[in-house]
């Protein structure tokens, strides 16, 4: 597994240890990219800061909360109505964004008074909301404002409110991952154990590292509810502040994104004895295995199996329709952190695509271990790439599509490589059985959009064919397919609706009598 130095980075030789090509017969012990290190000066990174990782990734998906940044208003850029972590309370946390709007005078004279005023004003403006999170920024950290003291003062004056303080300034780590860590630890230290939950089931889990991107959490919660399992809290997508204070009462932590949330699972295990089960919510086979494992922990495997059978029968023919048309297409899997390992193997096996490269913007070496293990030989693995390396990789690998964020994604589009938004999705949710088919449909639409061919024609000089119509997606995707597949009556395109969450909201869940014989895991 040789290390790979990009030509464009020959002037930054330290980058040579940040990329490897997975060679035949080589193992993780032969080469592993460096990771979770400060970006090398001269390398224009695509990372976020530690404040962003704490607030915009983990804190703000909590739904019933005023999320306040204590800093310049610019720190809240890219939050107001731009994120896609939905909630079932009319997206309160997406509709409003709050900052104390620090200016130069506050840097000189301090901003604690102004912070207190802001907190009170915000609670008065939204009297139905009694919970708040406050996020330190670089500016308020450098002047030493004591946010905890101000929050405690307000809580004394307003006994019906509760405030969580996250001290994770932008400079508090090499990337957003530093902020993930800080908010995990801050939450368990300040809030877990301060509320006793209402229990509705004998089986209770925390669903951790799940951010309800376009409804992922609601899809997974639906499966758990169909099994009679109570999701005591979700950390943090569509999660409620007070539910998350009661995490200490769960029987099992079901962990999805270990990159952003393994810390709180580890602490819950050490402090409260709640075990950690890592799962994959993406892909038919990994999801089926995950549901079975959770059910097995509680001794209710048959409930999981019933869901798997029903969902597989409904959606597998549609996944296969796309797989037949995506086989052999080259994919660069370039997400932020966990999706490189959640997807690397199952998009290859279940959609037929070849993963020619994986990268992570803020992942640690552990994420690379997982990602490299799960992709096939020949794949190029890159840690914290800069834009020029991304361009060079695209020239070298000639991918058919890229799954990445919107910044590198727009760059890819300029060189006519289609991209899907791996963080926020295109037409999600992508978790769950139906969600996985929606992902396959987005991949198909991305690769076979006729626009890529049309855009190669320059109307100022090229001859524009007028004797035939435009090519459709089906004409492009089916050209090399066998007649058997083309005319199959079993395989079909996606037949779900525009909004799959609507159906979930209307579902009536079964009631299960308590299993008297089953010894519940004691907490």
């Amino acid at each position, binding site marked *: 597994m040789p290390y790979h130095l990009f030509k464009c980075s020959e002037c930054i030789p330290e980058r040579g240890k940040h990329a490897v090509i997975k060679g035949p017969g080589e193992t993780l012990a032969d080469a592993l990219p460096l990771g979770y290190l400060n970006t090398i000066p001269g390398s224009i990174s695509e990372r976020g800061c530690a404040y962003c990782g704490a607030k915009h990734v983990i804190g703000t998906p909590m739904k019933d909360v005023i999320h306040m940044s204590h800093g310049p208003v610019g720190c809240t850029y890219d939050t107001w109505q731009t994120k896609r972590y939905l909630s079932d309370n009319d997206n309160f946390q997406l509709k409003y964004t709050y900052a104390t709007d620090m200016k130069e005078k506050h840097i000189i004279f301090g901003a604690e008074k102004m912070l207190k005023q802001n907190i009170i004003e915000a609670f008065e403006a939204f009297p139905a909301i009694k919970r708040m999170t406050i996020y330190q920024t670089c500016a308020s950290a450098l002047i030493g404002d004591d946010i905890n003291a101000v929050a405690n003062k307000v809580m004394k004056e307003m006994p019906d409110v509760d405030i969580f303080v996250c001290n994770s300034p932008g400079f508090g780590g090499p990337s957003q991952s530093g902020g993930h860590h800080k908010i995990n630890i801050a939450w368990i230290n300040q809030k877990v154990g301060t509320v006793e939950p209402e229990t509705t089931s004998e089986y209770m889990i925390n669903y951790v590292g799940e951010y309800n991107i376009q409804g992922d959490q609601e899809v997974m919660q639906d499966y758990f509810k169909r099994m009679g399992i109570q999701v005591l809290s979700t950390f943090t997508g569509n999660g409620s502040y007070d539910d998350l204070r009661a995490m200490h009462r769960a029987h099992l932590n079901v962990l999805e994104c270990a990159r952003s949330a393994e810390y709180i699972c580890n602490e819950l295990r050490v402090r409260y004895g709640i075990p950690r089960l890592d799962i994959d919510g993406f892909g038919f086979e990994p999801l089926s295995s995950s549901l079975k494992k959770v059910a097995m922990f509680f001794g209710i495997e048959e409930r999981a199996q019933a869901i798997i059978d029903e969902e597989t029968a409904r959606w597998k023919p549609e996944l296969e329709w796309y797989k037949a048309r995506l086989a052999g297409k080259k994919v660069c899997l370039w997400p932020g952190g966990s999706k490189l390992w959640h997807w690397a193997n199952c998009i290859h096996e279940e959609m037929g695509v070849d993963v020619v490269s994986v990268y992570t913007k803020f992942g*640690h070496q552990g994420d690379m271990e997982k990602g490299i*293990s799960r992709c096939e030989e020949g794949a190029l693995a890159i840690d914290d790439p800069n834009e020029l390396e991304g361009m060079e990789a695209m020239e070298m690998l000639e991918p058919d599509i890229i799954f990445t964020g919107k910044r590198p994604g727009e760059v890819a589009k300029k060189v006519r490589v289609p991209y899907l938004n791996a963080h926020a999705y295109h037409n999600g949710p992508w978790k769950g059985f139906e969600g996985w088919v929606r992902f396959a449909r987005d991949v198909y639409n991305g690769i076979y959009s006729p626009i890529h061919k049309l855009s190669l024609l320059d109307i100022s000089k090229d001859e524009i064919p007028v004797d035939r119509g435009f090519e459709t997606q089906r004409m492009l995707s089916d050209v090399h397919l066998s007649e058997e597949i083309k005319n199959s009556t079993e395989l079909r395109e996606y037949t779900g609706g525009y909004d799959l969450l609507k159906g979930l909201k209307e579902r009536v869940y079964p009631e299960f009598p308590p299993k008297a014989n089953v010894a519940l895991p004691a907490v």
Partner: protein
Amino acid sequence: MKETSKERVEQLVDVIMKKCLWQFHSRTWDREKQNENIILKTTQILCDEPVVKETPEEKCYWVDAVWLANAYKEKFPWVTEIDKEDLKQIMRELKERLDFLLITGSLNAELTDPLY
């Protein structure tokens, strides 16, 4: 052609690396516990021996072990055909190989971090 013991171990390693997540916990002490407990329980299941699963922690190891044992039986017919003592030997070698790839031979610099 019959595979060698080493080839069989690599087959078993490949399933874990491609399909499982439990082996990638972030610290050395975690990985040691995960490898020890899950491979032990998988071996017991494959050899029809009793498995202890009284505490939540043991139960959690057990569910990953059940999944792994089923996957091995489904993918590799030799797992159910060979002598149990030979299987135990292969599982011991599997554990050694995992410990090397993920702990003693690992290039992951975070494994030795004293804190989470």
